[in-house]
């Protein structure tokens, strides 16, 4: 039993570190490798419609290896018979056979659609209820509906990677465009560079040159995006998360080592008499030491035998799960040599280190002490003659005596549980350490989850409107107001402008895409979280508020500083008036007043985007209104691109964050498991050591129920103490974890929110785990017959 516990303790640590280090190695390698294997574009240019000649120009540019042109447009899709529309980005390929950039990996059915056929990216399957061979209905801008069969599922590891909020993709051939009333032109270029695919500066340089060349040729580049071949856009985030997992893995090893130390100490104590006999017949301390070190190594080897194969499977499983979530393919099952080495080291060294102190102490025991049983039975064995009562024991008795004097009598079986809890203080500390760590992480994960959601909630203040309408053409504010206010439930409408640009460095090189939203300066549909400066005002000219992500390029930026930007093809210098928190999407986000931007774009009193407020603000109502507005406006001939619930895109973001939280929770549960294993071991050892006492209680009238209760209350008390400590420790843990996660996901530290949920849930869980951890030892205790107990005499 005890051997099994030692082996299990080691195995848990080895398994955890194996899973995490293996997954870490697999993901860091496969993520970039599989990303790179599909020839991701280094340069993506979103342009106004263009023809084959522009593509030829790109292909003939020096330094460009491959280039492909596609037409990407938004469309709404639904399964026939349902009324749930989903927005998709439809990508039209000229020739699927000649696909050289952003390769598609066939998953199911056909890898390439024929005319009037569609292939879905596998991510889209979660939104559209369709099977290969099934029909899909597409809604055209004029409101007409066209049907096409879905003939296959593919995986596109490059497009949309790194964008939590991107719509899923579907693929058609250019020959289908006409059927969908779309022009035959392209609007995107995806290109790879021939050299320096992992040199972002080179790629930017090449991209900027290409852009200039195209614009000089009359083409209009709306925005550009540059990425390295071997760097998955989510690599930083993933590495940060893996870093957390690794830290937790190391912690679990640490926790399991305390479990090992505990169990080995108890084992050695049980063996004290044997050690005495060995010494009596001539064995030396060194021989005893060697014998037990060999035993520990054997335990380690046994644990490795169990944990290494499981750890390998677990590592691949975790990697596959993460790969699935981040949409990349693993290169196949394999044993990671580094992970294996780490496992072997952990499996052999950690028990050796953890067991060294108990083993050395055990090997030093004197023959007299060992044979007399003094060392082995300082609890529950033969009573010692008058000895020293520890201060803590005196303190405990004084407390109960003081309570008794005030007429408060604690039932003695409960007193036994209470005092037993503190009898083996070294063991208690180690057990509390594991359980407390598990609890603190568990609670922290819940706090982090709420913190992330709170931040998303705060971000939702950027999306106060209930329905967002995007149009292909600009409409006058008064005209739109007239039209939408007729729809029941709509109470207010605002026209917003949008202009995309690029952030430049001092030399005029493009640093990052820039998306400038322009709500009316006094808009109540946006409540920014300002970290510095002020918000936009109607009179602001060439002034804007930028998101915190700007610090990546200008770490010392302050309100009042000026930034070089390229907007509508012109290089300008704008003043930063404020810095706010937000999640950036496809570039840097900024806000400038509608009053100025509408003049800049020559669309005064007009807008492409409208934000509406309705009487109710729940998602269902927003969806219903969006659908109604969609129908009403199309009927009136407005060229509506999309009508969406205000919180639609946020919900997607929340789902992504929940995935992250699930990872953390798995780790928290794992630490909690190690903790409760530690408790089971401790309770098992305690019961084993107190066999005699249990027999005595039985001799003087204790029933099975009382014996079990006495043991379980002790276990639950340890659980409760660990909860208290864990609750305190969860505060710094939450801070640390929230900081790492928020920096990885949002690139900014966020305000921490604490939730009672984690505390309450962990209290319930730790008490349940403690009860469960004590139940087997308790049952064993109750089953002991007194004769067995007294047979120790």
């Amino acid at each position: 039993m005890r051997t099994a516990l030692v082996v299990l303790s080691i195995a848990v640590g080895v398994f955890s570190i194996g899973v995490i280090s293996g997954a870490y190695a697999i993901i860091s390698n496969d993520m970039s490798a599989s990303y790179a294997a599909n020839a991701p574009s280094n340069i993506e240019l979103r342009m106004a419609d263009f023809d084959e000649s522009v593509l030829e120009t790109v292909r003939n540019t020096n330094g460009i290896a491959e280039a492909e042109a596609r037409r990407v447009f938004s469309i709404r899709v639904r399964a026939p018979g349902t009324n749930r529309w989903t927005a998709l980005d439809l990508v039209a390929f000229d020739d699927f056979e000649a696909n050289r950039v952003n390769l598609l990996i066939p998953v199911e059915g056909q890898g390439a659609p024929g005319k009037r056929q569609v292939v879905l990216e596998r991510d889209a399957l979660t939104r559209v209820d369709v099977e290969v061979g099934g029909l899909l209905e597409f809604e055209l801008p004029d409101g007409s509906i066209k049907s096409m069969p879905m003939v296959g599922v593919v995986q596109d590891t490059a497009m949309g990677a790194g964008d939590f909020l991107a719509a899923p993709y579907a693929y058609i051939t250019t020959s289908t465009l006409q059927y969908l009333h779309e022009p035959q032109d392209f609007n995107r270029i995806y290109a790879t560079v021939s050299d320096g695919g992992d040199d972002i500066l080179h790629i930017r340089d090449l991209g900027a040159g290409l852009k200039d060349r195209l614009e000089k040729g009359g083409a209009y580049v709306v925005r550009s995006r540059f990425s390295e071949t071997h760097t998955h856009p989510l690599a930083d985030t993933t590495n940060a998360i893996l870093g957390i997992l690794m830290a937790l893995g190391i912690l679990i090893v640490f926790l399991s080592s305390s479990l090992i130390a505990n169990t080995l100490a108890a084992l050695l104590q049980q063996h004290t008499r044997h050690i005495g006999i060995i010494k009596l017949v001539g064995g030396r301390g060194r021989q005893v030491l060697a014998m037990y070190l060999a035993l520990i190594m054997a335990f380690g080897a046994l644990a490795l035998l169990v944990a290494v194969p499981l750890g390998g499977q677990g590592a691949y499983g975790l990697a596959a799960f993460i790969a699935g979530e981040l949409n990349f393919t693993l290169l196949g099952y394999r044993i990671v040599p580094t992970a294996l080495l780490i496992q072997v080291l952990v499996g052999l060294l950690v028990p050796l280190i953890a067991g060294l102190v108990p083993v050395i102490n055990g090997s030093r025991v004197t023959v007299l002490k060992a044979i007399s049983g003094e060392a082995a039975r300082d609890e529950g064995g033969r009573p010692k003659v008058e000895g020293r009562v520890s201060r803590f024991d005196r303190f405990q008795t004084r407390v109960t005596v003081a309570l008794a004097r005030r007429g408060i009598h604690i039932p003695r079986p409960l007193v036994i549980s209470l005092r037993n809890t503190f009898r083996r203080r070294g063991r208690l500390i180690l057990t509390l350490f594991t359980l407390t760590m598990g609890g603190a992480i568990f609670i922290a994960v819940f706090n982090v989850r709420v913190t992330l959601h709170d931040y998303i909630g705060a971000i939702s203040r950027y999306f106060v409107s209930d329905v967002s309408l995007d149009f292909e053409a600009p409409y006058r504010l008064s005209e739109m107001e007239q039209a939408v206010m007729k729809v029941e439930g709509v109470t207010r409408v605002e026209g917003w402008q949008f202009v995309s640009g690029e952030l430049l460095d001092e030399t005029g090189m493009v640093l990052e895409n820039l998306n400038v939203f322009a709500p009316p300066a006094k808009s109540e549909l946006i409540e920014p979280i300002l970290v510095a400066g002020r918000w936009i005002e109607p009179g602001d000219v060439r002034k804007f508020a930028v998101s915190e992500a700007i610090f990546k390029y200008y770490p010392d930026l302050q309100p009042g500083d000026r930034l070089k930007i390229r907007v509508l093809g012109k290089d300008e210098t704008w003043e930063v008036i404020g810095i706010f928190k937000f999640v950036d999407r496809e570039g840097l986000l900024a806000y400038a007043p509608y009053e100025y931007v509408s003049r800049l774009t020559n669309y005064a009193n007009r807008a492409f985007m409208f934000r509406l407020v309705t009487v109710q603000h729940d998602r269902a109502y927003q969806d219903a209104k969006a659908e109604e507005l969609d129908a009403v406006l199309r009927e009136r001939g407005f060229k509506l691109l999309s009508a969406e619930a205000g919180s639609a895109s946020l919900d997607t973001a929340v789902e992504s964050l929940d995935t992250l939280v699930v990872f953390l929770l798995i780790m928290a549960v794992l630490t909690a498991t190690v903790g409760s294993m530690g408790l089971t071991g401790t309770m098992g050892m305690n019961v084993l050591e107190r066999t005699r006492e249990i027999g005595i209680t039985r001799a003087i009238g204790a029933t099975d129920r009382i014996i079990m209760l006495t043991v379980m209350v002790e276990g639950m008390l340890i659980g409760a103490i660990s909860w208290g400590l864990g609750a305190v420790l969860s505060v710094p843990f939450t801070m640390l974890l929230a900081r790492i996660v928020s920096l990885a996901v949002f690139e900014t530290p966020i305000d921490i929110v604490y939730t009672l949920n984690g505390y309450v849930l962990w209290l319930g869980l730790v008490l349940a785990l403690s009860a469960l951890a004590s139940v087997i030892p308790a049952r064993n205790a109750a089953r002991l017959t007194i004769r067995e107990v007294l047979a120790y005499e």
Partner: protein
Amino acid sequence: MTNRTGKPAPVTDASPIIQIREVVKTFKNAAGEFTVLKRVNLDIYPGQFVSIVGKSGSGKSTLLNMITGIDHPTSGQVVIGGTDIYKMTESRRSLWRGRNLGIIFQFFQLMPMLTLLENVMLPMDYVNHGGFDERPERAMDLLKLVGLEQFAHKLPLAVSTGQQQSAAIARALATDAPLLVADEPTGNLDSRSAEHIFDLFEQLAAQGKTIVMVTHDPSLTLRTSRNVIISDGELIDETVARALSLLTHPQMMAVTRRAERVSFPPLRTIIRQGEHVDTFYMIIHGEVDVVLQGRKKEDAVVARLTAGDFFGEIELMRGGRSIANVRAGPDGPVELLSLPRDEFLRVVRESPLTEETLGRIVQHRLKENQSADRRRKLRLFG
């Protein structure tokens, strides 16, 4: 002509508080089966202070475990206070034990984490004895009884072993159980502490508690009202043990096996004066009179023997004819154990101590007979 304890076991008309019937206990291990108790029968009556003695490994602790319900008999029955204790589950038996039995262990077995007072209260909590708020007072009274009131709030580790055992006795008394069972209660104590503990037992016995105590201290068996000897898993007949107390336990067991029970109605002659004697008698129960007969056939009772006494040894050891009449007492029948001449002589030869003691007793009895005879003659002529 008295037995060694000087205190005959009180035999009452009350029914026994402990009845052990045909109890067999066999242990099994890798080496095979080993029978520790062999069809043991024993009755213990309320108020008796019984010591169980035997050599190490004789089965005395196993026998005690049968009484406390700590172990299961392989076969047989143990009825305590009218309850067949092995018909209960272990858990129910534990509760029953808490209410009906106080156990005192050689190693005291106080709970080390509880104060002496708490230790005494513990069984009350377990069996729900008395009101919850009354328990501290009762426990304190019991500690006073054993002289430990000033140590009530000390942990066992902080008091002497003698005090620990006193506290263990207080604990055994906690639920006011009628029966106290003690396993070598003084075995781990110095002589002063042992004396104190035994005084406590005597007080309790005087108060009417039934006490069953395992001990290997012969001096203690002298102070108990009844002495049960166990040898190799069998009980030695208590009459044999009292009559021939200097035999070794195996010798006593041999006598137990060979001796036969015989019964005589009141005044029936058992040995006739002047006739050959070929039997050694030990009195189990009742009385016998040693009577000298004059020439005119008048009877003179020169001695009255009771349970535990023996007769017939003078003739068997010296040879010759009986020097007196021995008959059953007038108040009731007498029950005897009879041992044939050859068997008696063999046992005596095997035990020089017994032979020597019996020799002295024979001399003593002869002198007594002679002086009684002289007194009788003087009366006749005076």
